[in-house]
């Protein structure tokens, strides 16, 4: 079910070169295309015809790219199920039984609804495409003393940790250390607070750099997250992208921990 790696890079300047991703964004996209191509009413889809064409497309795709077919197969199975349900004679008891296609139609229309919205969004005057704003280096205007600190969002914190973790993992991969891991988050919290009492502001990365093992690294990160959650530390930076700074904010409230 993994997505095409090219797709993840949504902002890359290199367009994905696979024919498949250029054509369809997924099984629902393909289905809508077939409904349009056959000029049929979405509320009265000729399931047999559409299913047949759908599977033909899958065969074609299979030859181009095997990876994504999994998601398409789910809908293929659904189509086959609907097809067989429609072939079955209706039980006499239930007069107003739901059309077996109803759920699929609902999904298709909902998907189309957001696709229309996406079209409308991209039709707007886009910053960096149609309109431009002034771009300049604000740091020129800011002197050391008046730096305004902004709170760090969780994503930046995780990103920094992830990058650091990757860097260190490579380093540590070569050495195998046997040790009994006895460090707890509580220990780490105490250690962090101790350090912050000695030095008012410490860089986030500095904490990570002092770690001796992957385990230590993870425990340190969790301890910092916990302290931030309990509002015992402040996690700030001067601007997005600049080093993340940790400072002491108040006594730990172990009771809620």
């Amino acid at each position, binding site marked *: 079910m993994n997505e095409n790696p090219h797709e993840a890079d*949504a902002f890359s300047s290199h367009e994905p070169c696979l024919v498949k991703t250029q054509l369809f964004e997924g099984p629902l996209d393909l289905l*809508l295309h077939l*409904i*349009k191509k056959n000029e049929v009413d979405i509320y009265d889809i000729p399931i047999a015809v559409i299913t047949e064409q759908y599977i033909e497309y899958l065969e074609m795709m299979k030859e181009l790219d095997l990876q994504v077919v999994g998601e398409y197969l*789910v809908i293929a199975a659904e189509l086959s199920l609907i097809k067989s349900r429609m072939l079955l004679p209706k039980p006499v008891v239930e007069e107003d039984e739901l059309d077996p296609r109803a759920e699929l139609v609902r999904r298709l229309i909902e998907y189309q609804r*957001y696709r229309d919205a996406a079209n*409308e*969004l991209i039709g707007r005057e886009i910053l960096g495409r149609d*309109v431009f704003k002034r771009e300049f280096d604000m740091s020129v205007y800011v002197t050391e003393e008046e730096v305004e600190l902004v709170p760090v969002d969780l994503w930046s914190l995780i*990103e920094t940790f992830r990058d650091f973790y990757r860097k260190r993992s490579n380093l540590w991969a070569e050495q195998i250390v046997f040790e009994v891991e006895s460090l707890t988050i509580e220990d780490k919290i105490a250690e962090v607070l101790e350090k912050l009492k000695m030095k008012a502001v410490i860089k986030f990365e500095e904490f990570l750099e002092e770690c001796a093992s992957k385990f230590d690294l993870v425990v340190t990160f969790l301890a910092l997250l916990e302290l931030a959650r309990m509002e015992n530390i402040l996690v700030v930076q001067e601007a997005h992208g600049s080093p993340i700074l940790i400072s002491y904010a108040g006594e730990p409230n172990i009771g809620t921990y």
Partner: protein
Amino acid sequence: MEPTDIKKAIECIIFVSDQPVSVDKLQQVFMELEKGDIRKYLKELIQDWGALGRGIILEEVAGGYQFRTDPAYSEYITNFNKRVKKFRLSRAALEVLAIIAYKQPVTRVEVESIRGVDSSGVINALLERRILEIKGRKEVIGKPFLYGTTGEFLEVFGLKNLSDLPTLKEIDEISKNLDTGISSIPEELS
């Protein structure tokens, strides 16, 4: 301070800002003024700039005010400055963005159930680009992240706020006009 001076000072602040300047931020500078007064000056400024008929437009965007270029001249700007940050969004990213913009806060699974395809890669790319952000966690099993759009999203798409988003089409309108679908996204962006 004379009203004309206040207006000019507001103009200067907007001019030197790299982000849209909000009424709140302006009030921190002009503490003697009511927010309503500041809004009045801003409205006048927008009209003044419009009446001048210049290549620069003062616009209300992302909860603030910003000077932007007239879209008619985008071509010359990109030709002049090759280093200018080009806006690119894949069709997948755009779909994900539309779903999240309208349904926020929303989980990845909810996005995927509408699109029918795995969307984690696209969501992460949009997070890194700061067009999306994590808004919290949903109180269900596994506590998945809830995603929403950022101020940068509003800025990029030139929206005043979230309620400035175009209204979603009615269901019956969509089923009648299925062919307004995918084709209208410009080539370069798909």
